[in-house]
């Protein structure tokens, strides 16, 4: 067995190349915002430009095939890229982009013509994608789509889309395109009545409104890598007689559920199917747990609280243990497939672990650090306000699959549930 996370020689050489490239190519006016909500439009545009540069280099989706504009790197080298980006405070991609769901979906279900037309803009960082699955009546029950995409009576190579999506997207609308799940038949049975599109976001009849939510994203989005890739703001998107050409339809008219599952498998945590950006062996440190333990160790006032109330030490230790287990699960998920072993439950198990860790951390922070964990005050907030963001975002465990949805997936993988 080998648990080593250190670079080997090949990796070290590539890491140096990445560091050099980043030094030369990262804009000088790149500023890390305190929270995603405090990221200016200008700073967002800076990241947008980094996307394009990374895309040109093939490093935005490093493991994707060069045939379509990807980097063709091994999972390990992609991991190096991730680590070096993280050292600069950047995630990969460096802003919220559902491209990493769209890419494996296209690879699995699109025609060759579609791959050649639709993949390069994503892989080269030219097109930002939003995933549009969730609806008011389709939460955990994602097959229950009410947004209709019906073929037009005349010109029936066009679909007419009507309906609405909710809790989608991220700060700074609009994106370039939507990965859009719809209902394509009012009569066909469940799971055979859906259609998936990768459609332009600027078609007539589309309206996008921001929502007033108190979290800025899930805790893993906000805290894990870099808050840059958190949604920050979620939106409603309304479709009124929007005409979409069938060339944007992925799979057949009734294949939407099958196509959606190619997306959901990746979203629920299956790294093996993930042809997107993150290297299969990239084991992120849990940034939040790390910063929390730093406070316990190094902030004399926190330490004195812990020594005065030893029961709080139990909270600290539980946070440490949870962080270690999460790290080991991710490591296992990265390493086991190479050993030729695969457990279908392992991906969603790690995702569930991350979500529950976030929820528990949002309580643990207040218990151990006290009420100052809840303020974003410039003078008093700890770790530059990180904990205040986490106290809110830890509660937000629905995006990317509720724990209940993940448990359905895990039960199925364990062959006990349907």
């Amino acid at each position: 067995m080998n648990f080593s996370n250190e670079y080997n020689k090949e990796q070290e050489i590539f890491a140096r190349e990445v560091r050099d490239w980043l030094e030369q190519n990262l804009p000088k006016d790149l500023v890390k915002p305190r929270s995603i909500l405090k990221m200016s439009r200008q700073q967002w545009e800076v990241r947008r430009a980094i996307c394009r540069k990374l895309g040109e280099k093939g490093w935005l989706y490093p493991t994707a095939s060069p045939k379509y504009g990807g980097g063709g790197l091994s999972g390990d080298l992609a991991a190096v890229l991730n680590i070096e980006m993280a050292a600069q405070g950047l995630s990969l991609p460096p802003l919220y982009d559902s491209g990493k769901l769209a890419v494996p979906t296209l690879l699995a279900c699109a025609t060759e013509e579609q791959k050649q037309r639709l993949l390069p803009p994503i892989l080269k960082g030219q097109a930002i994608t939003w995933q549009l699955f969730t609806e008011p009546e389709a939460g955990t029950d994602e097959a229950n789509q009410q947004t209709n995409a019906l073929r037009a009576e005349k010109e029936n190579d066009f679909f007419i889309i009507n309906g609405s999506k909710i809790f989608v997207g991220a700060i700074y609308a609009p994106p370039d395109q939507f990965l859009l799940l719809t209902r394509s038949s009012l009569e066909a049975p469940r799971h055979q009545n859906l259609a998936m599109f990768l459609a332009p976001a600027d078609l007539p009849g589309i309206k996008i409104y921001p929502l007033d939510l108190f979290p800025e994203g899930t805790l893993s989005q906000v805290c894990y890598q870099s808050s840059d890739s958190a949604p920050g703001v979620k939106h409603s998107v309304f479709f009124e007689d929007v005409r979409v050409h069938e060339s944007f339809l992925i799979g057949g008219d009734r294949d939407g559920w099958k196509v959606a599952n190619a997306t959901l498998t990746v979203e629920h945590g299956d790294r093996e199917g993930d042809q997107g950006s993150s290297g299969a062996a990239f084991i992120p440190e849990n940034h939040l747990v790390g910063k929390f333990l730093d406070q316990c160790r190094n902030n004399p006032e926190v330490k004195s609280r812990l020594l005065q109330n030893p029961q709080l030490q139990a909270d600290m230790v539980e946070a440490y243990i949870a962080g270690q287990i999460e790290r080991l699960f991710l490591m296992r998920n990265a390493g086991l497939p190479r050993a030729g072993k695969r457990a279908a439950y392992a991906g969603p198990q790690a995702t569930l672990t991350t979500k529950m860790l976030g929820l528990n951390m949002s309580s643990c922070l207040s218990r151990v650090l006290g009420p100052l964990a809840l303020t974003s005050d410039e003078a008093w907030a700890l770790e530059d306000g990180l904990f205040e963001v986490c106290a809110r975002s830890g509660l937000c465990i629905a995006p990317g699959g509720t724990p209940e949805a993940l448990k359905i997936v895990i039960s199925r993988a364990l062959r006990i549930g349907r």
Partner: protein
Amino acid sequence: MNLDFRLSESEEILKTATLNFLKRDINKQTLEGLHDSDTGTNEAIWRKVVEMGWLGIITPEEFGGTGYPLTTAGILFEALGSAPLPGPYFSSAILGSLIIQEAGTADQKKSLLPALVEGTMVPTLILTDPWLGWNSEAAQISCQEKDGNYLLSGRKLLAYDALAATHLIVPVPLGKKRDSLSLFLVDKKMEGVSLRKLPGYLMGRAFEVCLEAVSCPSSGLLSKFKRGGAPLRKAVQKSIPILCSYLVGGCQAVFDLTVAYSRIRVQFSQPIGRFQRVQDMIIDMINQVDAARWTTYEALWKLDTQGTAPESIHLAKAVAGEAYWQCCNLAHRAISGISYSMEHPLSLHTRTSRAWYNFLGEPAYHKQQLAGLLLMVSK
């Protein structure tokens, strides 16, 4: 054995009147506005609150109050928690009144309590410091005597309701002994007092209070010099279960709205309440709601009948503080999506559950106190 869990007639009337007021006068928009405001109240509401007698609920009749038992005040605050209605009512009518009752001289009571009941004097205790919990050792204000006055200087964090208050009750430690502190009543209008609200969606109305050589006359000394510790502790102890009642009201409301939603929200062609996973969340919630409710009721009953109840008070705050927090977590899990909207009623409860979690001792503090009582007291 004379178990009797009925409310008294006056308690029933108070409860109904309070719930009616909340329903009639505090609509959703008003409530959201109050939560976003810096005081948690406004002039119109304040006038009605004075009329309804909330501010005098436990202040003796001789000082203009109604002198109800703590249990009755619990019924009122449980109703307020169900909204949840913000505002300095607990700080003034309960904690403030009890400190003045326990620590004040006869003259002070005579002058201060009627004003408190009429809502013209609004005290709030400036106690909670970061890190060190709420107990009196935590105070970090310095005090110098000068020309018969006391000069108070220092900075306090996490002063709740400080903007809504007219007066700050400031504990000042003097000497090493635990109880050796003085309690000053500082008029906020005095020179050298400044406030700054601490930002944070979940923070509640907590302020940084700065005292810069505030000159407090000796008449502002609430307790005898250096004798403020014991009465302060007594007042805080009595106040805690009423704060718990507020949390219980919040828990119950969160439970109710979650159950209601689970009956109408349909996924996979059935109400989500039919799913065992959602049922288990709801059962977890009702267990916590009821645990919070009955530990709180018993603590109030013991205080009203026996005067003290240290275990029960620690138990109630440990259970109710955690219950409100966890009920909100569970409700977010059960309701999901829309519950994260700032316009959803749950979000007001979530804010409130966080804001009050640490006030007068977080659950871990009270559990630690219980451990001390369990280990040191011989049966």
